[in-house]
């Protein structure tokens, strides 16, 4: 049966190949698009799990930004707020953060032309980012000045090693020394560099200003309440719970996913129509042969299975090709994003799950496209089919 189905597919080679290519392209796009969402979700999950802070206090202007530590927007609030926040009932600890963007070049490519520089206290790294591990060197320590701990992506892009110094002209004449390089965590932390907060504040003349205060609470059940209290107590800042930030991100992700799925489903529809039209053509050309098979005693069911098998094989081959194509496309998208869009932390990812989805979808296309022609053929009148020319 499978042998016969395969032989039947080789009858009109060009047409079979074109059909397979058409469907393969549909699958390629599906896999490629899904890999974007998948990559984003994966780095997002890496980046939000295991974070120590429960609340972010941000200047009001940037309160809608889901990833406040990634870039600096120039908005600040007074450092004395730290004491005010600390005095609120449920607050356990406050970690001041001062972020700046460090420009290496005038291009817009992250990592190559600029990096996010986070001024933090040593406690921030050890208590709120316990998952960060040092690959070379050490973390920040009390008393450090003009020292730098960099994420793996930063180190790679800038060719930094422990002991390297940043060109002084970039940092107002002060040569920062790299004391530590972090192991890749697969998340956004790979794309950041950390410096002592006082050093950065001093360098940029913002001695008493912060961009973020990361807050931990005593009673997690009262996190929301505490955030509200902070927002109400202090002017021009907004407190966002970690959960809020995550759900802001999730909304964004769901939107991206929905968009990708709708594009993918159009691709799938095209795939189904491709195979369907080919199969309908094929079976009408083979009408006489189908009548002959029925006359010989081949049952409707067997014929049905034969046609569906042919369609499934087409789908399967197209699916395999499409997965390979999708892998390539995903690499291309990653490259294009890094090259043009300038958001290097958006990496595409082709997981086995995506390959499985691609193959499954292709098989589904094959099955769906095969059912109607198979059903039509199995209902054919034998005498009429035999008379068909």
């Amino acid at each position, binding site marked *: 049966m499978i042998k016969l189905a395969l032989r*039947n597919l080789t*009858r009109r080679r060009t047409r079979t190949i074109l059909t397979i290519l058409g469907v393969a392209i549909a699958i390629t796009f599906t896999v490629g698009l899904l890999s974007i969402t998948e990559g984003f979700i994966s780095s997002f999950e890496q980046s939000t799990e295991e974070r120590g802070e429960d609340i972010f206090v941000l200047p009001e202007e940037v309160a809608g930004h889901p990833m406040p530590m990634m870039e600096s927007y120039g908005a600040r609030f007074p450092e004395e707020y730290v004491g005010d926040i600390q005095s609120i009932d449920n607050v356990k600890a406050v970690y001041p953060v001062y972020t700046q963007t460090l420009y290496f070049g005038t291009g817009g490519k992250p990592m190559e032309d600029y990096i996010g520089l986070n001024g933090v206290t040593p406690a921030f790294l050890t208590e709120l980012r316990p998952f960060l591990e040092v690959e070379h060197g050490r973390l920040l320590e009390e008393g450090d000045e003009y020292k730098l701990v960099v994420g793996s992506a930063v180190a790679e892009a800038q060719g930094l090693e422990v002991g390297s110094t940043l060109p002084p002209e970039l940092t107002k004449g002060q040569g920062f020394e790299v004391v530590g390089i972090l192991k890749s965590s697969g998340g956004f932390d790979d794309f950041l560099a950390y410096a002592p907060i006082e050093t950065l504040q001093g360098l940029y003349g913002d001695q008493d200003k912060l961009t973020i205060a990361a807050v931990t609470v005593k009673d997690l059940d009262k996190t929301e309440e505490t955030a509200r209290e902070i927002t109400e107590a202090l002017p021009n800042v907004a407190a966002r719970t970690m959960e809020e930030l995550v759900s802001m991100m999730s909304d964004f992700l769901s939107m991206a996913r929905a968009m990708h799925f709708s594009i993918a489903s159009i691709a799938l529809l095209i795939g189904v129509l491709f195979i369907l039209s080919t199969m309908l053509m094929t079976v009408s050309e083979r009408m006489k*042969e189908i009548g*002959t*098979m*029925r006359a*010989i005693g081949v*049952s*409707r069911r067997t014929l049905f299975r034969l046609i569906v098998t042919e369609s499934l094989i087409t789908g399967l081959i197209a699916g395999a090709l499409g997965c390979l194509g999708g892998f390539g496309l995903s690499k291309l998208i990653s490259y294009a994003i890094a090259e043009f869009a300038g958001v290097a932390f958006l990496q595409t990812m082709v997981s086995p799950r995506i390959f499985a989805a691609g193959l499954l979808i292709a098989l589904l296309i094959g099955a769906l496209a095969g059912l109607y022609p198979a059903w039509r053929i199995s209902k054919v009148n034998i005498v009429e089919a035999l008379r068909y020319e």
Partner: protein
Amino acid sequence: MNDRVIETSHLSKVYFMGGEEIRAVDDVDLAIARGEFVSIMGPSGSGKTTLLNLIGCIDHPTSGTVLFEGQDVSQLKESQLDQLRLRKVGFVFQGFNLMPVLTALENVMFPMEMAGVAKKEQLRRATELLSWVGLPKRMNHKPRELSAGENQRVGIARALANNPAILLADEPTGNVDSKTAQEIALLFKQVNSEHGTSVMLVTHNPGVAEVATRSIEMRDGRLV
């Protein structure tokens, strides 16, 4: 009863075409005994093919019955009719109707595969049948690589694959030259005498009809 492979009684098939009633087969009583070779002649449109289709269970009568080895085929479910055609009937077509993607050998094996015969046995019997019809050296050729006469020999071998009770041949020599037609006719004769298979053969060719043990003529749906 069992000496009759086929027995029809008051068998009729009526079509309506453009509001006009066409009695393609009209009240036909026909019995074909086991081992009998019947040829059916008659002008085009006289109902020969329709009669053959009714007996071969690929068409349903408007009225009347077909008994196949004593079994009223109208009582059979579709799947049983499939099995009956697969195992008891061998069709031979004017246009050969071989599967173009299969070799001669595979074409002959096909009905056996459908009948669930073991692969080894399929191969053995298909080889034997193809040798028997005179194609021992052409087994691995596809239909388009064979002549019309060779293709019809493959068609006959395929029809014999599951050792049927009757061969039903509709103008089997219609697409071959007269010399080959005679050879094909003799092959049917040989099938009939050596295998004891009943044959019902529709033809326009009096020379082909001659090899039959009984000749019937049809006109306007009736036997004359």
